[in-house]
């Protein structure tokens, strides 16, 4: 080492002492509990390691970087949540997507083989929905250059019906969500597509000195696709299901973008579901349902296309929930390490304003490139908290270049967790949560559900080329809770995606919106969860069903999982 280098290193050491820690360097942090989550992956029996195939240092294949998602759902209707994990090893890989069934003892067993879901490919995301209204949840897998639909046979197996169902999407599909946009009782499908990627293109950081993954701005965006479910009647056999590609007819094909996240909910209060798409480094798009089969893009007009500075950001995952208890849902979108995760609060109805700074997301313990996001009440104090999984998309500025044996290290980051004070202001509690936030990895998918039936929402996270992990909720002094499943017997007893549910205890009201498709490439437990604080019972439950009908259900004691059937309440 020459004298110049020594001097630089000396100065670096001096400077290092005065600089605050950066997520990019993944410097050690002092964690102190008690944590809200513990890692139970090993004892749960979940032995899934994400595959990206052979990494070649001369070939930074972007689909590897986006990772793959996870679904938490009860595929066999036995009352225990199961887990489906997506692989990204490519069509020649031996590593298949894997389905884990949860037994009565809480352990997960790999039941992939012969399930029909044990497929290979450059798998990206997963969406869950009962598309043929038979009461059994079906599975949609998104891939680099494709989507695949699997119908649940009701006996632990699935059959692929992609082509027969009329589904075709040769684009780079990422997140997907089921939504009954025309309110005909059949779940339609929205699929976000990323960029028109050229796999032969080589990109680098700093003038060819260090190869790296390409920036999405190197490629044109692609359209988000919408498929209308024609129901069983549309299928030739009258038993299966048939979709029609209405991307252009509905208007979604008019504006392309590099879509990564999607969430469907009623954004303008007309009781018809709208579609929000998070675009990477481009404005978000909010497709407002015109109630005639078409949509109109209104993200900029409603304040959710850009951040408070009018800038486009690296929009990735989406979380939806009412963070300040005003009865209107708010939106959190995860962003790059150089940006902040942005919180758009709704108010008045249909309008959003970037309240990131007020919410406390500017001065966090560390920053990260966020992907998966869950907004739920982890400690049951009545306010929605936030968990975010992070992982860079370009090598850290402070890292050593990637090498064959440590390829993903320069992309690794730690996760974050935030506690809500009930007014929509968040405290960064990452340092109290070493199990969830302490391990740097290239985290991507995140989904939640009450895996162990104790009322607390647990988390499942995925990482590029790393193990998927289960985190059980052990938040101390948790309050009371209620877990509600909404089903419509007239639709085969399937979950009522698109319903709004309000729980009231005394003068306190909590509102939730039913759709498991949010976060990033992932699908959550379809039940809605309420933290009730000190309330030991709720006085009434109001449901606004997807078709616009309202029902009221009687109050009941807290701390139980209940099922509400459409038609069994009071109008």
């Amino acid at each position: 080492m020459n004298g110049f280098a020594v001097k630089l290193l000396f100065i670096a050491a001096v400077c290092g002492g005065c600089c605050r820690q950066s997520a990019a360097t993944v410097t050690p942090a002092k964690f102190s509990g008690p944590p809200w989550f513990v890692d139970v992956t090993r004892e749960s029996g979940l032995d899934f390691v994400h595959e990206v195939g052979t990494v070649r240092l001369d070939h930074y294949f972007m689909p590897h970087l986006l990772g793959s998602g996870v679904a938490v759902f009860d595929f066999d209707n036995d009352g225990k949540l199961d887990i489906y994990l997506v692989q990204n090893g490519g069509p020649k890989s031996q590593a298949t997507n894997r389905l884990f069934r949860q037994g009565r003892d809480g352990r997960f067993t790999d039941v992939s083989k012969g399930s029909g879901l044990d497929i290979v490919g450059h798998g990206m995301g997963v969406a869950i929905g009962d598309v043929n209204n038979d009461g059994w949840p079906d599975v949609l897998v998104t891939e680099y250059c494709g989507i695949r639909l699997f119908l649940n046979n009701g006996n632990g197996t699935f059959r692929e019906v992609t082509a027969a169902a009329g589904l075709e999407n040769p684009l780079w599909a990422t997140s997907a969500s089921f939504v009954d946009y025309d309110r005909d009782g059949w779940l339609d499908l929205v699929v976000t597509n990323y960029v028109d990627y050229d796999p032969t293109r080589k990109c680098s950081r700093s003038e060819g000195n260090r190869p790296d993954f390409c920036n999405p701005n190197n490629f044109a965006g692609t359209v988000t696709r919408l498929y209308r479910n024609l129901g069983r009647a549309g299928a030739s056999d009258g038993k299966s299901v048939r979709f029609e590609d209405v991307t252009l007819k509905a208007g979604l094909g008019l504006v392309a973008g590099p879509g990564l996240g999607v969430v469907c909910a009623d954004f303008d209060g007309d009781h018809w579901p709208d579609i929000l798409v998070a675009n990477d480094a481009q404005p978000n798009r909010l497709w407002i349902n015109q109630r005639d089969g078409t949509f109109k893009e209104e993200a900029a007009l409603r304040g959710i296309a850009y951040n408070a500075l009018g800038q486009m950001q690296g929009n990735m995952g989406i979380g939806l929930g009412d963070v300040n208890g005003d009865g209107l849902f708010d939106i959190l979108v995860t962003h790059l390490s150089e940006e902040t995760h942005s919180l758009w609060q709704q108010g008045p109805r249909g309008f959003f304003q970037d309240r990131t700074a007020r919410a406390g997301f500017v001065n966090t313990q560390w920053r990260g490139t966020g992907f998966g996001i869950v907004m739920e009440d982890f400690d049951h104090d009545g306010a929605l908290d936030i968990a975010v999984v992070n992982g860079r998309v370009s090598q850290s500025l402070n890292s050593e270049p990637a090498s064959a044996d440590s390829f993903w290290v320069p992309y690794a980051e730690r996760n974050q967790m935030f506690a809500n004070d009930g007014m929509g202001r968040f405290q960064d509690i990452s340092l109290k949560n070493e199990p969830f936030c302490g391990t740097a990895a290239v985290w991507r998918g995140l989904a939640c559900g009450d895996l162990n039936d104790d009322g607390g929402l647990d988390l499942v996270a995925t990482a590029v080329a790393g193990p998927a992990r289960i985190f059980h909720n052990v938040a101390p002094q948790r309050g009371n809770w209620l877990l509600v499943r909404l089903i419509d017997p007239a639709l085969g007893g399937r979950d009522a995606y698109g319903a709004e549910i309000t729980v009231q205890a005394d003068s306190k009201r909590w509102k939730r919106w039913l759709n498991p498709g949010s976060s990033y490439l992932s699908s959550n437990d379809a039940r809605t969860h309420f933290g009730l604080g000190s309330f030991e019972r709720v006085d009434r439950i109001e449901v606004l069903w997807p078709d616009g009908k309202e029902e009221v259900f009687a109050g009941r004691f807290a701390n139980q999982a209940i099922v509400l059937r459409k038609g069994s309440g009071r109008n």
Partner: protein
Amino acid sequence: MVTLVNADPNLAQVIEQARTAVKNSPSSAKAWGHLGSVFQAHAFMTEAQVCLAQAMRLDPEDGRWAYLHALYVCQTDPEQGIPALGRAAQLCDGIAAPRLKLGEALLEAGRVEEAEMSFRAVLAYDPNNPRAELGLGRAAYARGDWQESVAHLRRSVARAPGVRATHAVLAEVYQRLGDAKAAQVELGRVAETSDNALWPDPYQEAVGRLKTGIEARLEHAQMLLQQGRAAEAIPLVEELVRSRPDADAVHIAYGRLLLKIAPVRAEAEFRQALALRPTSLSAQTELAQALELQGKYREAADCYRQAVDLKPQDGTVHHRLGLCLQRLGDKEGAIGELRIAVKCKPDLTVAHSNLAELLVENGGFDEAAQHLQDALRLAPADDTARRLLTQIREQATRAPKR
């Protein structure tokens, strides 16, 4: 330490020169600041930060180094970035950029009143500064004062009409004020402005001028071309071809410059690029275009087919291949390719129209009508598609019902 193995020779040379200057004058703030700036220009941010910090120590009164250093701190640690920018703004008194950046950082941190003070301080000595007006417009927006926000934003737009961010905020504020018409006008302007304009910033511009290497020079040439300054761009790229004949990106860039004016020479450049990197999709498709322009449709189709092998779902390539096959008289083949094109790229209006025309020739009126409808959904003003669709409908009405 920056490793210059495999680095662009120009870049290596520039860094080495700046390093030598520091070695020769280790107490020179200017030498350290210049080295830091060279590193920053080429995204060696850690090294840049170290050198700029040393320059600040050696000359605490020079605002340049404080500002460039503060920009880095803002990225890695926004909390510390604000005081760093504050110091830089004081040192750079009279130059707006650091104080404007400070105002924006304060705004992002939710410190709206302090941000407004910063923007007003700039307006005190530069009353027409559009970036300061935009900042004040955003600050008023954050306070929910829509009328005041509009007033500032309009002043900003009047002085800098090409800034997308200003139009975006204006559109939303108008909508909130219930003026849907004005909101739509602003939305139209958002769509017209391709990207956010770069605000004047002498310090960052000085860093930008230090950029070297192939990518930087190609970017510069591209910028000249966009500004209609082809006469300046062409010699720049020609010099690159001479100095870096081993870089396929250079041949592709040169070929693109020549494509319309000299397709034969463009073809040669693209072939050279392919010889250097046979798996380059862009070289393959550009070569196909050069051949197409010369009327060599068979060869062009072969090139497009090779491009399809590299990327089977490329809608644009399938579209071009379809058109080549049509020229070669292979109507069925053309229809097949155009069908794939619209599946891969459903928003490619012209592919829908081209497919519809071929389908009509083949008697496939129903499918043609669907594609014409799609073309009109994407481009409602497409009169050709509208006329053809009307013709098809009239034919259908006239046809005897069975």
